[in-house]
C-alpha cells in the first residue's frame, strides 16, 4: 500500500454502486447454488466454478458456430445440467457418507480435473463468447450510465431467488429439501426420498450455474480454463462469512462479498486494483475472527444446523 491513498479511493459514485449490486447479485446466485448442495449433501462444491466454465465454453462454441442466441443459451444449460448430474452420480453421491475432508478433496480433484481437461481440449488462449456482447452497452438512467448486463444480472438474480423461495416454501419437494437440510436421516425415516431431494438440489444448483455462466460471459467474453475460478473462491469465502448452515445467510454472504468487491474495485484507481484481493480477503479474515459462525447466521456455533 502506498503511504497516502489517493482521493480516488473515496470516489464511490452511483455507477460504482449499481455495478457493485450487480456483482453482488451474481455472487448471490452462486452462493445459493453452493448453499443448496451443501444443505442436503453437506458438501462444499469447489467444482462449482468449473460448471460455470463448462457453460461458458458452450456459449463460446455456440457463438463460434454462429448458432442463434437461444440455441447457445440452451446448449449452455444442457451442458451445465449434464455435467452437474454426472458429477453428482459419479463422485458426490457415492462419497455422501464420508467425512467432510474426503468430500472437499473430492471436489477439489473434480475442479482441477475439469480445468485440466479444458486446458488440454481447448488450449490456454481462450475462446470468445460474443453473442450477448451488446448487453455491455450502457443505458442512461437518471444521468448515470449503467451497463445493460448489470441490470439484466440484477433482474435475473431477483427472479431466480423469488422462484427459489416459492419452490422451497410452496411445494412438497421444497419442503422435503428444507427438511433434508435440517435433518437428513429423520427426513428419510419419514419417507422423504434422498435421491429425489439430492437430485432436485443438484438440478437447481446447475440451473443457477448456467444462468451465472450466461451473465459472466457477457461481462468477460474471453473464456479460459480458469474461467470463474476466482469468482468461486470469492463466493466460497462469502458463503462461509455469511454463514454456511443457512441458505439465507449463505446467500447474503455471497451478495455481501460481491457488493464489497464491486465497491472496492470501483473505488480503487485502476493502477492500484492489484490491492483488491488483499483488502477483500483481509476483510474476510477479520469478519471470521469476529463472527466465526457467520455474519448473518443466528447464534455463533460453526456447527449450528439449519
Amino acid at each position: 500500500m502506498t503511504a497516502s491513498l489517493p482521493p480516488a479511493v473515496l470516489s464511490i459514485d452511483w455507477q460504482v454502486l449499481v455495478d457493485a449490486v450487480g456483482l453482488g447479485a451474481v455472487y448471490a446466485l452462486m452462493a445459493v447454488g453452493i448453499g443448496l448442495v451443501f444443505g442436503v449433501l453437506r458438501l462444499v462444491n469447489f467444482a462449482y466454478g468449473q460448471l460455470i466454465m463448462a457453460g461458458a465454453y458452450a456459449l463460446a462454441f455456440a457463438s463460434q458456430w454462429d448458432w442463434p442466441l437461444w440455441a447457445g443459451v440452451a446448449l449452455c444449460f444442457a451442458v451445465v445440467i449434464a455435467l452437474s448430474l454426472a458429477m453428482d452420480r459419479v463422485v458426490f453421491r457415492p462419497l455422501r457418507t464420508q467425512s467432510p475432508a474426503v468430500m472437499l478433496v473430492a471436489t477439489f480433484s473434480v475442479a482441477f480435473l475439469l480445468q485440466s481437461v479444458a486446458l488440454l481440449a481447448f488450449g490456454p488462449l481462450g475462446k470468445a463468447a460474443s453473442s450477448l456482447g451488446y448487453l455491455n452497452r450502457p443505458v442512461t438512467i437518471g444521468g448515470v450510465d449503467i451497463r445493460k448486463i448489470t441490470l439484466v444480472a440484477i433482474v435475473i438474480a431477483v427472479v431466480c431467488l423469488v422462484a427459489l423461495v416459492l419452490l422451497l416454501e410452496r411445494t412438497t419437494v421444497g419442503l422435503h429439501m428444507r427438511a433434508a437440510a435440517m435433518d437428513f436421516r429423520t427426513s428419510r425415516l419419514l419417507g422423504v426420498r434422498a435421491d429425489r431431494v439430492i437430485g432436485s438440489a443438484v438440478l437447481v444448483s446447475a440451473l443457477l450455474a448456467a444462468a451465472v455462466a450466461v451473465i459472466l460471459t457477457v461481462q468477460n467474453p474471453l473464456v479460459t480454463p480458469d474461467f470463474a475460478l476466482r469468482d468461486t473462491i470469492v463466493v466460497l469465502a462469502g458463503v462461509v462469512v455469511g454463514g454456511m448452515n443457512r441458505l439465507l445467510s449463505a446467500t447474503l454472504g455471497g451478495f455481501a462479498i460481491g457488493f464489497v468487491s464491486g465497491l472496492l474495485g470501483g473505488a480503487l484507481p485502476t493502477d492500484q486494483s492489484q490491492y483488491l484481493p488483499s483488502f477483500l480477503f483481509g476483510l474476510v479474515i477479520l469478519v471470521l475472527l469476529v463472527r466465526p459462525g457467520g455474519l448473518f447466521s443466528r447464534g455463533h456455533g460453526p456447527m449450528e444446523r439449519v
Partner: protein
Amino acid sequence: MSGSDAILELRGVGVAYGGVAAVRDLSLEVRRGEIVGLIGPNGAGKSTTLHAIMGLVPPRDGEILLGGRSIRGRNPESVAQSGVALVPEGRRIFAELSVEENLRLGLAGRRGAAGAEEDVNRVYDLFPVVKEFRRRHAGALSGGQQQQLAIARALVAAPDVLLLDEPSLGLSPTVVDIVFRALASIRERGVTVLLVEQRAQRTVALADRTYVLANGELRMILTPADAADTQKMVAAYLS
C-alpha cells in the same frame, strides 16, 4: 403363534456395530392390530432392533418380513413407503418448521395421496393440541406436545405398523399418561404397534405381548397378566 398373520416378523436377526454384536438371533412377530412391547435395560438392543427394521443399520443375519415380504437391505425411505412408520427416540421433530409442515412431511411415507386429508383430520381428533398449534413453529411446543406431534406425523403416513422408540422418555407423568392413552386409542383404530419402552410395567400392561431383551438376546416374553407380578417383572430385568 402362527407366522401367517404376522404383519411384521423378525427371524433370527443379528446386528453388529463393527465387531460388536448389538442384537443376536432375535425372532419376534407382530400381528395385525396388536400392540407388542419391547423392553429391556439400556444397551439391550431395543433401538438397534427398530433401526434394523427401518433400514438404518444392516442386519448381519436373519430376515425381516413385512406382510410376508422381505424388507431387509432396503433404505429407510423405502421401508417407510412400504408401510412402516417410526416415532424416533428424542422425537426428532423439525423445530424450525411449522407443526403443519411437520405433518406434511409425514405424508411422504404414504403409499398414495387418497385419503390423506381424512387421515390428517383423524390425527387432529386424536391430538387436539396438534390441530390447535398447527400454525406455530414446532420448536415452540412443549416436550409433551412435540411427542404428540411426532406420533401424529407418523400416523398420517397411514402405516401398517407403527414403531415407537421410547415415546415417554423425558416426559412428565401427566404427559406420559396422555401418550399411553393415545397408544390405546391408536390400537382401537386398528393400527399395529411395536413399542420400545423403559417403563416396563406400563408397557407390559398395555401390550398384547412384550418381548424382554438383554444383551441383544431375547430373554423372555411377558403377557399383560405379568404386569402385576412384581417378581416376574424384576426377574425380567435382573435374572
